[in-house]
């Protein structure tokens, strides 16, 4: 195990200065995620336009460096994308975190790839995986317009 793998500079930086923090105006979708183990919470605000594009994506909440950075990076990556691409990205991310297999980043540019990969250190810390994935599950829930809160204990 290597702490520097987990706490890469980009993570620490996003953890300290999260992007897209706050409640965005006129959001069309919203979802809430919750980690009962630590009590941490995240709220996702999504503004979808008529073309099914993510016009804005912001979040509120408290959490550890991993969860804040993961959420912040997620908002950066997904903002401006089509809902279709957003869904693919979520899948890509969750696959990377869960499986030790090599993940294919065909549709990502180098910058995107670097950001996503900065979170890959989590795979070696099983108890922290949920910190990294909660926001992504919550986004997925927001997109689908589900009412129920996402509970990190009920995601695999």
């Amino acid at each position, binding site marked *: 195990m290597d702490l520097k793998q987990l706490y890469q500079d980009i993570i620490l930086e996003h953890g300290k200065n999260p992007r897209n923090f706050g409640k965005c105006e006129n959001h069309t979708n919203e979802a809430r995620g*919750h980690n*009962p183990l630590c009590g941490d919470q995240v709220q996702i605000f999504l503004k979808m336009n008529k073309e099914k594009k993510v016009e804005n994506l912001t979040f509120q909440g408290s959490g550890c460096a991993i969860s804040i950075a993961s959420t912040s990076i997620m908002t950066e990556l997904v903002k401006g994308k089509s809902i279709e691409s957003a869904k693919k990205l979520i899948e890509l991310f969750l696959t990377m975190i869960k499986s030790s297999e090599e993940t294919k980043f065909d549709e990502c540019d180098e910058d995107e790839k670097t950001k996503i990969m900065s979170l890959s250190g989590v795979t070696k810390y*099983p108890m922290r995986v949920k910190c990294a994935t909660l926001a992504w599950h919550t986004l997925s829930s927001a997109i689908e317009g589900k009412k129920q809160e996402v509970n990190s204990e*009920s995601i695999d």
Partner: protein
Amino acid sequence: MKINDVKSQFPIFSKKINGKHLVYLDSSNSSQKPIKVINSLDNFYKNEFSNIGRSIHSLAVNATNKFEETRMSVKNFLNANSKEEIIFTKNATESINLVAHTFGQQNINKGDEIIISELEHHSNYVPWHYLRQTKGAVIKFAPIDENGDIIIGELKKLITSKTKIIAVTHLSNVTGTIVPIKEIVEIANKKNIPVLVDGCQSAPHIKIDVKDLNCDFYAISCHKVYGPTGVGILYAKKKWLERLPPYIGGGGMISEVGKEKITYAPLPEKYEAGTMPTAEVVAFNESIKFMEAVGIENIIKHEKELTNYALEKLKKINSINIIGNPKNKAGVISFTMKGIHPHDISTIVDEEGVAIRAGHHCCQVLHQKLNLTATARASIGVYNTKEDIDVLCDSIKKCRKVFELQ
């Protein structure tokens, strides 16, 4: 693992009782434990101990993983649909209470009917009796015939529009009757009545497939399945666990707690309050592995052979009366002897190193039906041998001698 190698896996059989080798015929009460189960406990406490689920340090991560591995093994052992359907309790008694209490709270009102059978263990009667007392429910007993088989036709007749649940044993701990659960579930399903199965005696001795049985609830005690004391299992269809209220409340089963409002954790944690029997659950994985290594088919075959052998030999002993002669009988043999009370039999055979049980075996309704207060019971486990049966029979003959009967 060959069946002949099984006994050597159990350290206790190298022990002597009253100077004699232990002939353990009380497995329906609780089974002995194979060395790997004992070693797993030892290793876990010595090298890996931590509470699970709550802390995120390395010890806790490892413990949590091992704990969940057992859950997965149990899921496969029972052929459940998902891990969420497997709840760890303290024993089968708690498993049944969990269902009776939560199901009763939600679905039983005054005058509603609960069907159980005359074969039931107190653990599958008293929890329903509580609903009779607190909710005004009615308990109906499906009768047995003189062989100890539930009369399915009579059970069918007991069903009314008020029947809310049927709770029945899979294998009687007195007569050894194997109950046709699938048939009962089919009858119940037609009327949308859920079925709880008390699987305490079946789990160690016959193949269990909850998907095939299609029952709603299945209760097991791990200590009877070659596992440690302190752990039970409740299998329940996910729809029930989602729908029913929680049972024991406390740490680990909540989602969010505020001064006004509390929400509960997802499955299976919703039903696992407080610190679990962590080491014991981890060790139970070795019990399942042991069962699988021997192979359930081999276990069934071996125990069937021994049961037949024992019945043959016992019947030849003067004045022995075997209780029940069900269509499908497992290795549970209860009997009485004219002129000698079961307690006296137990004391005398114990002198020969033979451990059997005497009493009502927590089945007083059944004993009332049979017009007996107590019986003696020899129950077979995977480790028993023909020699064990021989010693049993010799020691029973000795009872007659002590009591100076011809």
